[in-house]
């Protein structure tokens, strides 16, 4: 038994022990798979641990999003969870998340795979398998079971199988030729390469632990997880811990042991939930004597799943995600889950086999009559739906198909509020494309439908592709007013201050949360803007080696362009403001020496400027105040153009 940090046995301590293999406790890639996923818990607790923080540093203050995102630039983290649990969307943190689904089964594996190098540049890969979901309940409250090991050749084939299956799901979700959020597929690829390298090593005979992964495969010829738990051997006694039970007789038959001891979970009222009917009747396993035992106090929900097999002087201990149910362990049923287990041969099983006392039938309640402490699994959605937002195209792509044997009706999808479409036919091969004007991050969609006369809804993640760090909120959003203020005070800084601001994105000029009220745009100080550009021009003249087309630094035109692009341009005033700033950017960029960067920057501006120019001329033509000022009822488009040229000429005069 390994005692974790703080002297506690927790899921966290398994992760901390794995992270301690790496230099500065910082690995290069981490994969988490889980059934239920709680982003708020993960982002506030687990993600900082992966970024080198210690748990006791997390209490009392929050690690800022910006700090985490900076660390995550050098660390790839991917999370796969089950889509039927409808997790909340993630925050703007630099980690990949893909909810995956099975039309008939659950993605139920709880694996952590950590890869990287230690301080002496030696490569390590460690794997943890547990029963714990990546949630507050799983990591903090429940009684779970967890184990971990440094990966070795005997682990590799199973891990590769899991990674390949996840890669297929990622390819299916994101498609080819796209850059998905946080390079999730690259993370999988790096982990796969690390796993394959582990497989090339000499097997370590002293190691007695293997990984069992169960993923859907075509046909029924593959061994079931029950077969692999029993390892094809004949056992005399099998002890099973599980919170959920189903098909117990069939499972007993699969194990083939003459004796089975079952340890159900107890609820806070002292009642053990177990389907009593499964102890008798048909269904195989008649040759097995089944006894029920209890072990746990009523203080916490026990979510652990463990299988202790003994016979012929040998033992085998399997722990992990698989409940004692048909979908988890057997291969013949309609439902088949993705599960993962760790199997230990000939280890000390005392802690798992001792302390069991007989359980009387009076203490057992059938699950359908008991309110369990743990909510049961949510219903499987009757369809598969994937929504991807492509930042390059400003387009939502929706793929949709109905699951076999399911009949949802009146299916409608809602994306970010105003976008609504009926999903009345298969859109899997020919996806539904929804163009949007708004270039903003939308995290989730909702599908409303009826099935069996009941109104239902399903909430899913919107996957992001081809987004920049700015689009996805991984770098703070620049605010134009603050950039202008910064440029206006440019002449007052000493060299050290200037160097500091040029080194990276300057946090002082960014909105902490990236939120800005549209109303704030209404008052714009044009004098300040011209003064800012005047200062910038002078600064560039004094420092001819500076590259104003770089991404960062006080002198970066791109930074100003980002800021103005991210602001609302809904009102005429806001469009005028954007137009004026873009013209100044164009003027300044055009004055710089010729280069490819200059050409690209000017091209990027041109489209927006042309479009806005048409808008502005329309505004001028329809402006009642301009009509009044010119005392003309016959104010033409040509006059509007002339007025605009005159205005820009006057406004552009320096000094």
């Amino acid at each position, binding site marked *: *038994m*390994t005692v974790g940090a*703080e002297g*506690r*046995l*927790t*899921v*966290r301590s*398994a992760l901390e*022990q794995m992270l301690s293999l790496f230099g500065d406790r910082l690995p290069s890639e981490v994969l988490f798979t889980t*059934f239920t996923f709680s982003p*708020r*818990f993960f982002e*506030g*607790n687990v993600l900082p641990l992966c970024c080198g923080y210690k*748990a006791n540093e997390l*209490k*009392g*203050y*929050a690690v800022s999003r910006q700090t985490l995102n900076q660390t995550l630039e050098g660390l790839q983290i991917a999370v796969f969870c089950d889509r039927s*649990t409808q997790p*909340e969307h993630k925050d703007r943190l630099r980690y990949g998340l893909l909810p995956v689904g099975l039309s008939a089964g659950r993605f139920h594996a709880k694996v952590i795979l950590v890869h990287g190098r230690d301080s002496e540049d*030696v*490569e*390590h*890969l460690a794997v943890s398998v547990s029963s*714990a*979901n990546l*949630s*507050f*309940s799983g*990591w*903090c409250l*429940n009684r*779970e*079971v*967890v*184990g*971990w*090991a*440094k990966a070795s050749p005997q682990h590799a084939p199973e891990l590769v199988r899991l990674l390949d299956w996840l890669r297929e799901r990622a390819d299916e979700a994101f498609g080819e030729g796209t850059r998905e959020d946080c390079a999730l597929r690259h993370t999988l690829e790096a982990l796969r390469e*690390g796993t394959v*390298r582990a497989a*090339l*090593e000499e097997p370590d005979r*002293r*190691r*007695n*632990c293997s990984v069992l992964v169960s993923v859907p495969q075509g046909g029924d010829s593959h061994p079931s997880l029950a077969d692999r738990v029993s390892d094809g051997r004949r056992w005399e006694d099998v002890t099973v811990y599980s919170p959920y039970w189903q098909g117990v007789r069939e499972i007993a038959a699969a194990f083939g042991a003459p004796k089975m001891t079952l340890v159900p979970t107890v609820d806070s009222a002292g009642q053990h939930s177990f389907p009593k009917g499964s102890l008798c009747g048909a269904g195989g396993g008649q040759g097995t004597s089944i006894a029920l035992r209890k072990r746990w106090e009523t203080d*916490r*929900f026990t979510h*652990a799943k*463990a299988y202790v097999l003994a016979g012929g002087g040998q033992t085998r201990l399997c722990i992990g995600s698989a409940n004692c149910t048909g979908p988890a362990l057997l291969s013949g049923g309609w439902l088949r889950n993705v599960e993962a287990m760790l199997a*230990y041969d000939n*280890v000390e099983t005392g*802690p798992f086999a001792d302390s069991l006392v007989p359980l009387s039938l009076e203490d057992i309640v059938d699950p359908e009559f008991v309110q369990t402490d*743990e*909510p049961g*699994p*949510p219903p499987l959605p009757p369809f598969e739906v994937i929504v991807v937002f492509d930042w390059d195209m400003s387009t939502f792509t929706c793929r949709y198909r109905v699951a076999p044997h399911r009949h949802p009706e009146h299916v409608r999808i809602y994306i970010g509020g105003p976008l609504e479409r009926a999903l009345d036919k298969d859109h899997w091969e020919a996806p539904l494309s929804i163009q949007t004007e708004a270039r903003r991050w939308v995290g989730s969609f909702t599908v409303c439908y009826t099935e069996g006369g009941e109104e239902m809804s399903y909430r899913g993640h919107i996957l992001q592709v081809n987004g920049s760090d700015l689009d996805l909120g991984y770098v703070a959003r620049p605010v134009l007013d603050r950039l202008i203020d910064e440029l206006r005070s440019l002449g007052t800084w000493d060299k050290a201050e200037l160097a500091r601001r040029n080194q990276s994105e300057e946090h002082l000029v960014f909105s902490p949360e990236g939120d800005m009220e549209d109303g704030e745009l209404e008052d714009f100080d044009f004098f300040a803007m011209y003064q800012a550009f005047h200062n910038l021009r002078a600064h560039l003249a004094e420092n001819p080696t500076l590259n104003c087309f770089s991404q960062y630094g006080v002198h970066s035109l791109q930074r100003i362009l980002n800021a103005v692009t991210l602001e609302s341009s809904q009102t005429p005033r806001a469009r005028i403001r954007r137009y004026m700033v873009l013209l100044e950017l164009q003027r300044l960029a055009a004055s710089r020496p010729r280069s490819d960067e200059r050409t690209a920057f000017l091209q990027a501006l041109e489209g927006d400027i042309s479009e806005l120019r048409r808008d502005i001329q329309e505004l001028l033509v329809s402006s009642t105040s301009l009509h009044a000022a010119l005392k003309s009822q016959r104010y033409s488009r040509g006059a509007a153009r002339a007025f605009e040229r005159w205005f820009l000429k006057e406004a552009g005069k320096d000094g």
Partner: protein
Amino acid sequence: MNATPSRAETPWFTDRDQLLSMVGSVRDPMGRQGVWRSGIGRALVPRLASGVTRLDGIIALLFIYHVVRRARQAGKGWSVSATFRLLEGCLECYLQLRDGPVYGIQALGDPASFTIRPKDGRIACNGLSQYYRGTCRRAGLITQDLLDLEEETHAWCVEAIEGQERTIVGLLESVGDVLESNASVRPLDAFLSKPPTLDLLDQFFRHSFWAPRLKEPLLGSHTHELRFAELCADIHLASPNLKASLDSIMQATSDRNETDVSIRSVVPHIERCERFICWTVWLFGWLQHCDRMRIDKATVQLEVVKDELASAALSFLVIPPDLQGTDRFRALAGVAGTIVNDFPSTVRSLVEYHSRVMAPRGLEPLMLIEAGALVVRQPEYGPYDLGQITSDVESGEWLDDYYMVAAGQIFRQIREHDK
């Protein structure tokens, strides 16, 4: 790949993770004060903070600022926080000797044995400065950076201690001695046993001098703000609860009086705001009893109060934009919108709102939704009746005071001496 053999770790059943599940004390988990404080709460009481209920506190703070300025002018390099701490304790002792406590009665205890250590300057021991300086800044009595008196206030202070120049110089010397020695002192022995110092303070703390000067800065310069403070003094302080108080204010004011109209245009919105705030806060309390309950089941249970809750939410949504204040108000309006338009999402909306309130404080939410069920980090046990919430809301025993106690108390003290 590292070839160093390592034994496989044997697995373990997990304990509760005490460190990650640790929850400290959390005040105002639904952020209700942020909803009303900057918007609707400031419509009629523009400057006073909730804790500012004594004119003495304001005068004491001005005295300290005056001494700090004198010390700075005399070239003393005293620590501002230590000076504040020392004089704060000294003045609280003085006020308790003369009249009663300003603030921090618990910390003060018995003035005879009360001691101050200047090195405690970083600690907000008694709270006088902490609670009163924001009001003084909004009132234009001290500068925006909280470091100095505004010039007009300084002139008032000079006028208030006219003829006491030698005493204040002596006080400055005494204060300097204590600060330089950094020793603990008993204010009663160190300062207040000297009759000239008591005389100086008696002269400075004349309410008749300060009341006319502080009236508008504290209560507001508009007629309706002063009138509302008067109503708070005469009605709110005598009312059993906020609802009764607001009803009485509506009865006491008239549609025909221009000043009253300004008040009557805000008061019903205070009721709308507070009624919905109470619903959300008490529903959150109810949810803390629903650990592990599926949110669809919790929603079904909420059906019994759906009509009352939706009515309160709808009423909240009609509060006009100029009374809405901060983003927090708009976030709560989002919850109200969900209740009205998408009732099945009510529980999710409340939990998400709570999460948004906690995030800027660097705290994790007290409640999460995991796999469609509530996970409460600090569950409450025992019965909690939703019907009770309805009757509690209707009782008018609400949670907030919209600065009305402060306005009423300060108005009473000013009225007494502003004649």
